[in-house]
């Protein structure tokens, strides 16, 4: 009987001490905010296009972090971002629903622009410059290709052009050997069966 009492007492004491340590640790190591949201946001391309169904990259990160959204909604990010988010969240990769288009740049046909500033207001990164009654133009270096400016334009003078490939930014693709391609196929196969 005394053996049992001793066992109970020692375990109880151990549990009490562990509980106290955990409580102290929670206070001392407490982090403000949810770091997961910031980590996911850091992986996203910041196009702020809304193709994920959320009004911007930060809201989507918040939704993914709280497990309200799937990891495969980011269209511009493509497969790579989906895999990175899945890896971060510790979930299975999921096949992308939409194919990411080639990177695009918005282009205002200035001759037709009427200076209404509707596109300027629509751009989430302020990449269009201009003033009321003056023609507007897109700052190509800042444009993320989100296409949010195309709809508001009343005279439909904005084109989405494919971003030109610069030779300075050209890089070697994967070798065209079967084994190199197999790596990609295996990943796609895995993702679509998740």
């Amino acid at each position, binding site marked *: 009987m005394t053996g049992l009492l001793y066992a109970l007492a020692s375990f109880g004491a151990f549990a009490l001490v562990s509980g106290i340590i955990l409580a102290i640790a929670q206070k001392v190591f407490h982090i403000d905010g949810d770091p997961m949201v910031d980590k996911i946001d850091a992986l996203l391309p910041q196009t702020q296009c809304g193709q994920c169904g959320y009004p911007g990259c930060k809201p989507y990160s918040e939704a993914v972090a709280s497990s309200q959204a799937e990891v495969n909604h980011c269209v511009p990010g493509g497969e790579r971002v989906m895999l990175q988010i899945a890896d971060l969240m510790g979930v299975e990769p999921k096949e992308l629903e939409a194919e990411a288009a080639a990177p695009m740049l918005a282009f205002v046909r200035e001759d037709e622009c009427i200076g209404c500033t509707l596109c300027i207001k629509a751009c989430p990164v302020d990449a269009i410059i201009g003033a009321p009654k003056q023609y507007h133009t897109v700052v190509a270096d800042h444009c993320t290709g989100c296409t949010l400016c195309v709809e508001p334009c009343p005279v439909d003078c904005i084109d989405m052009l494919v971003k030109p490939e610069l030779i300075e930014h050209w890089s*070697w693709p994967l070798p*065209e050997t079967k084994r190199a391609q197999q790596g990609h196929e295996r990943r796609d196969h895995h993702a679509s069966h998740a």
Partner: protein
Amino acid sequence: MPLIMLSSPHAHGGDSVRVIMLTVILALLPAAGVSVYLFGWMAFLLIVTCIVAALLTEAVCLKWMGRPVATVLDNSAALTGLFLALTLPAATPWWMAVLGSVLAIVLGKQVYGGLGYNIFNPALSARVILLISFPLQMTTFIMPMSALEPAINLYDFSICATLFFIGPEALNLGFDAISMASPLGHIKTEWTVGVPVAEALAAYQYSYLDAFLGLESGSIGETSALALLIGGIFLLARHSITWHIPITYIVTVLVLAGLFNALNPDQYASPMFHLFAGGLILCAFFMATDPVSSPVTPMGQIIFGLGCGILTWSIRTWGGYPEGAMFAVVLMNCAVPLIDHYFRPRVYGHSARRES
């Protein structure tokens, strides 16, 4: 002109997996020859069965996995079969040999993804499985034809075929009648009844020369240190293997054996004995140096050899089994990815200290 975007270099030295595997097979031929001399048709049957079984198994596996069956011609399955055969005792029945080959190819190689992906040496992992599953047959060694009075005539094909395909009962012989303990097994069992090493070896009529030439009992390919050394030097000369693993492995065993032998010669056998006993030279030059399951980096290879040596000698001396080399190599195989990560060479332009 084709539009394949393969980058430089646009030249190749001509080396291929087939040639590498073939070189090792050639290096094993002296040992295979000695095995046939010692164990006659039994050795021959074992070798052929293992190789054929390995090739067939690999062909079936490749077909099943949707890979080109022609890959079986890269000689790696044939090599695995030959390896396995050389580590088996002569009295191994045919179904055990086939089982071993199947295990080596399937569990030792294909299940990991094929050549290049296995963690463990395929032949050794099969040998270990067989040893643990069939301890009696795997530790019973037939008396070789070099013995003074061999129990059965292994140069008679019909006798060997009967033994191989049916078993010793068909010849009205028990295992004990035709078998003979290996030197390692002998001194180990003698020590358990208190007989010191030197006495046990004298009773066994052990001679270092016989051990060097291979005129002793054991698995069919591991007895002849001379034949194996010839093969090993051939491999070194052809640059199929580097000196790091075999030399480190053997030197470690010699040093440990020498140390303990000096402390207590009654219990611990001499370094020379350990050198020629069991599968040390076979494992050091051929098994531990299997490229897929051994480290890539020179320092890593030395660590690997060191670990194998320590484990081999420890298992032989203090472990439950008389033979430790195959276990040692398989155990060190587990550590190889870690060894590769931590023992990378110093890169040009970087200081010696590495932050992993």
